């Protein structure tokens, strides 16, 4: 199947714009690219984690485009990947020809209150999401050559790339000294090493027919296996067992197999950089480097825009911010533009095979492989 059209409402803070208005802008842009009008899609999946009941209906209702099944999908940070997976399944089964997928979110600044935690966990101070990121970062540092300087380098790389993205929230390059000079949120993570929850929308039109040239070769979502204490599933306790395969690796392996490609075939990657360490962990989990090799891959310059395998040419979540429901689809929008050669100053020359990776609470991990 193909990506017939993509659309985006810039990620950032938009106090004067309602959630349906952001969603409608992204949907309209995607439908226009696909040359699909009212009645031209047979199902719609709306990804959102915080927008509440029937958000998809609000967006499509605002456009007067209802009547088909409209289903909201929540899978934490991977909500967009989950919606895409459902849409791709509906097309692959032959049940639908054209499906609209979109994601919307409008989140306040700061740590997000999540119904995921029990009230007692909040009361005990255990609902501290950035602290879990920090513990994971420390374990990565403990088990590989990753240092705080590497964490700062990821931020420098992604912010430099984001400076060229008009849809990003932060569009200025930063220096490592300033990253390390920003306040410590949870050691070893400083404020600028963490992405900002924010607002935005993204939309993708999937279609069975082949016209546009950008194909979806796999759209996989996997949840976690039990046992690991610091996986995105955030349990209260886990086993002393290093052998539990993380959900991102489960999803990546399935996606590589389905697409018939391997990590060595990739030209460009958008991966979940909720925090700077999360991107480096992604290198390992997606098999872009051997276990423990993420610092070396970063240091080699391979994952910078001019490198062999640019990661997060969009600037990543560290530049764009993270509107949960929209973020995974925002990665797909970026990669479709890269594959079409529409990446402007952040274009990866000659990109033909692209991978989008997202992982979040649940845990859920999504991997999408696109080719042209």
């Amino acid at each position, binding site marked *: 199947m193909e990506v017939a059209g993509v659309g985006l409402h810039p990620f950032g803070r938009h106090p004067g714009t309602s959630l349906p208005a952001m969603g409608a802008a992204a949907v309209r842009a995607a439908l226009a690219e696909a040359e699909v009008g009212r009645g031209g899609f047979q199902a719609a999946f709306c990804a959102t984690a915080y927008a509440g009941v029937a958000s998809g209906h609000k967006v499509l209702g605002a456009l007067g485009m209802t009547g088909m099944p409209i289903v909201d999908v929540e899978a934490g940070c991977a909500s967009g990947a989950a919606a895409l997976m459902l849409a791709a399944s509906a097309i692959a089964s032959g049940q639908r020809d054209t499906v609209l997928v979109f994601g919307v979110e409008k989140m306040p600044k700061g*740590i*997000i*209150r*999540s119904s995921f*935690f*029990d*009230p*007692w966990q*909040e*009361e*005990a*101070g*255990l*609902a*501290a*999401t*950035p*602290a879990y990121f*920090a*513990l*994971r970062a*420390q*374990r990565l540092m*403990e088990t590989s050559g990753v240092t705080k300087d590497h964490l700062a380098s990821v931020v420098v790389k992604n912010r430099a790339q984001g400076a060229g993205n008009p849809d990003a929230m932060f569009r200025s390059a930063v220096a490592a000294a300033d990253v390390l000079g920003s*306040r*410590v*949120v*949870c*050691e*070893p*993570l400083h404020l600028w090493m963490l992405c900002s929850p924010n607002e935005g929308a993204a939309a993708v039109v999937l279609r069975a027919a082949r016209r546009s040239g950008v194909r979806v070769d796999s759209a996989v979502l996997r949840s976690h296996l*039990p*046992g690991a*204490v*610091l996986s995105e599933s955030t*349990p*209260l*306790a*886990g*086993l*002393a067992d290093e052998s539990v395969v993380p959900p991102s690796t489960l999803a990546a392996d399935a996606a590589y197999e389905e697409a018939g490609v391997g990590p060595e075939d990739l030209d460009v990657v958008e991966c979940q950089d909720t925090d700077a360490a999360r991107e480096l962990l992604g290198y390992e989990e997606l098999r872009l480097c051997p276990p423990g090799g993420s610092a070396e891959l970063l240091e080699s310059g391979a994952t910078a825009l001019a490198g062999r395998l640019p990661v997060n040419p969009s600037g990543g979540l560290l530049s764009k911010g993270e509107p949960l429901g929209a973020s995974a689809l925002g990665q797909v929008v970026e990669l479709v533009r890269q594959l079409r050669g529409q990446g402007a100053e952040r274009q990866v020359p000659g990109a033909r095979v692209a991978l989008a990776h997202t992982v979040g609470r649940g845990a859920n991990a999504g991997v999408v492989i696109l080719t042209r």
Partner: protein
Amino acid sequence: MVARVPVRQGLFVDADPPLLLGGRCRSCGRPHFARQENCPYCSSAHTEDDAFSGPGRLWAHTAVTAAPPGYQGEVPYGFGVVELPVGLRVVGRLTEADPSRLSIGRLMDLVVVPLHVDDEGRHVVTYAFAPEAI
């Protein structure tokens, strides 16, 4: 003496030394915390009560510098994972709020600490981990 109330019933025994109240699977033998009816690893419904004691080894640690949602206590506070001898890695508060004073592998005691005072004047308490004196 100020009355104490656990932040959640059935989570730990407020004694000296304290105990964590978890369970063990009668099918696969693996321990879990907090107590669950079904084994979170093998799905068996045959589980039984078990209790776990310290000390354990610090496996990961940080400090929380801003109050997370729903938290009324003081900041900063220590936060980490301690590996107990039973083979469980448990997330919890640490009594040491300066990460530079701890390191991975440090022996940590299981303790009970106050969080805040509730509307009835009682100390709400939780389990936590404290570095053993060297």
